[in-house]
């Protein structure tokens, strides 16, 4: 069995008593307060809530980009904050894909090379990495955008390329933080369609932050946050 394939209905992310505090000048600001959360491998989680309620902070902590002040985060039996920075980086690169609201690119590389980059980081051979990237681009219907620099693409194309880069390592989990915030409705719909397919067809765990209520029904589960706390958690 493909070891990348998560076992269905199993918990893939377990968060316990998570707190996140920031020092802002003299004041201690609590961004996340006592979060307990279990996410199943088959989940498509939609997170929403007012700006500043801690959604991005939560995603960053799940991805191991940010550190919790207290609490534990376990991703498939791995307590990610017990890993070293480099180990956590490798873990993230292999098991998680991230899409930001504003995609970032390596400017000296073309779109195909950018998408292949996570594989290169893992030490894969260049030819192999590029052919994987090519496949993913075909899947997302952007194969013809391989040559140009990603910054020359439209917003929608960039987000699809960003998704391609997120899934090129065949990760368990895809984290998308307001990925459609800057897109027109057509481009947004297209991106969401791919996310849904990743969840339904490829059995990937999706965690999506979005304000757009149109997409809430896509999720198998809906989490509302407020002031650093989860105030509602409903399964569709």
């Amino acid at each position: 069995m493909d070891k990348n394939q998560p076992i269905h209905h199993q918990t893939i992310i377990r968060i316990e008593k998570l707190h996140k505090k920031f020092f802002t000048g003299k004041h201690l600001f609590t961004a996340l307060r006592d979060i307990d959360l279990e996410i199943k491998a088959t989940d498509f989680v939609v997170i929403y809530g007012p700006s500043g309620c801690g959604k991005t902070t939560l995603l960053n902590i799940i991805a191991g980009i940010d550190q919790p002040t207290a609490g534990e985060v376990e991703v498939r039996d791995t307590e990610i904050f017990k890993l070293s920075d480099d180990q956590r980086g490798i873990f993230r690169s292999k098991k998680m894909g991230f899409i930001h609201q504003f995609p970032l690119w390596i400017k000296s590389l073309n779109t195909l090379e950018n998408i292949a980059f996570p594989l290169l980081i893992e030490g894969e051979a260049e030819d192999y990495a590029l052919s994987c990237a090519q496949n993913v681009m075909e899947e997302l219907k952007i194969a013809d955008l391989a040559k140009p620099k990603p910054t020359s693409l439209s917003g929608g194309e960039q987000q699809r390329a960003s998704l391609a880069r997120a899934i090129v390592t065949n990760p368990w989990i895809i984290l998308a933080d307001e990925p459609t915030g800057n897109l027109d409705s057509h481009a947004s719909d297209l991106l969401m369609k791919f996310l849904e397919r990743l969840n339904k067809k490829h059995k990937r765990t999706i965690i999506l932050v979005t304000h757009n209520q149109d997409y809430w029904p896509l999720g198998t589960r809906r989490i509302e946050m407020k002031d650093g706390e989860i105030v509602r958690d409903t399964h569709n």
Partner: protein
Amino acid sequence: MDKKILLKLAYRNLMTHRLRTLLTLTGVIIGISAIVFLVSLAFGLERLVSREITGGNAFQLIDIGTGNSQIVKLDNEAIQKIKSIKEIKNVEPSISIGGKGKKTDVEIDATIIGADKQYLNWSGFSPKWGKIIDEPDKAVINTAYAKFLGEGDPNKYLGQKITLDILIPKDYSGEAEDRKAENQEFLISGIIKDETNVKIYTDYHNLTKLGVKNYSQLKAELVKPSDASYARKAVENMGYRTQYIGDTVAQIEQIFNIFKIILASFGLIALVVAGLGLFNTLTISLLERIKEVALMKILGMKKEDINRMFMTEAVIFGIFGGMAGIIIGIIFGIIANAILNHFAIRAGGDPVTIFYFSPLFLAGMLIFSTLVGFFTGFYPARRAAKVDALDVLRYE
């Protein structure tokens, strides 16, 4: 991460900022080529000077004289005694006395030097026209004497007869009075380039035949150069004075080493400026790409790999700047030498090589330049590796 990929990333980044890369590289090239040019000049001059003095076997020979002593004499007995010193392989004498060169009704004062071929070879003596011939009736003259004989190409005097009056001083002959040996005839076998004062060289046996018993100077050949100080002591214990040109050469080397350091310092100033330029470029490159670095970190790239990526860029500047700098330094040296020789030949001089490109020095410069890249890249690379991805992304 694969080293090839890191190299490619560094290369791509350098190529996306071509002008900046080129300018930074030019700085390094100027610094390195300045050092190569100046220090190779010092090397070249050093070689020129030490060759000029020694004729190449400086460390093999000791000069032996009497100083101002009236007691010790340099005669055949002395030669035998000195030859018996085991560190000494061979001894050759020379006699230097006064005389007159004669041409129909005119005369000119001349120094007459008696020495055989071996001695002249040791002295780095080489005629520009003709050669040294070890036959009793042959002599080598200098161009000063050729001028006395007449104008024009000195070549035409080869094989011609010269007539000399030779003064035999009493302390050379051991006789009661100075004596004059008149109308001694020789055939010119060679002419050396020397315009200073009139000199005529002939086999010393021609002078001993006329009654000379004491020599002016001896040259002793060492079995090996490391024996020099033993041999000198032994000779000095017999009451003679010695001179070892090896000492002079060592002194010259010392002086030139200081000269090299001074010249290298000038070049180093240029290189320091270039190093600052490189540092500046790398820092700007980091600040410009700080979001990319943050992205790389988020994508899981190791600190070590980020560090290496920046170090690669810095070292590329060092290696390529070094290689190009060395080549350009050599080219400028060759051009400068050619220009100098152009004027030297026009002024009637001989062409000389005043630049010497020591392979060891050039290899050292390449390593040095690489190290400059390495150390200049050190801080920006470490800074890049320490970038806090979240800090960077927060300010989007």
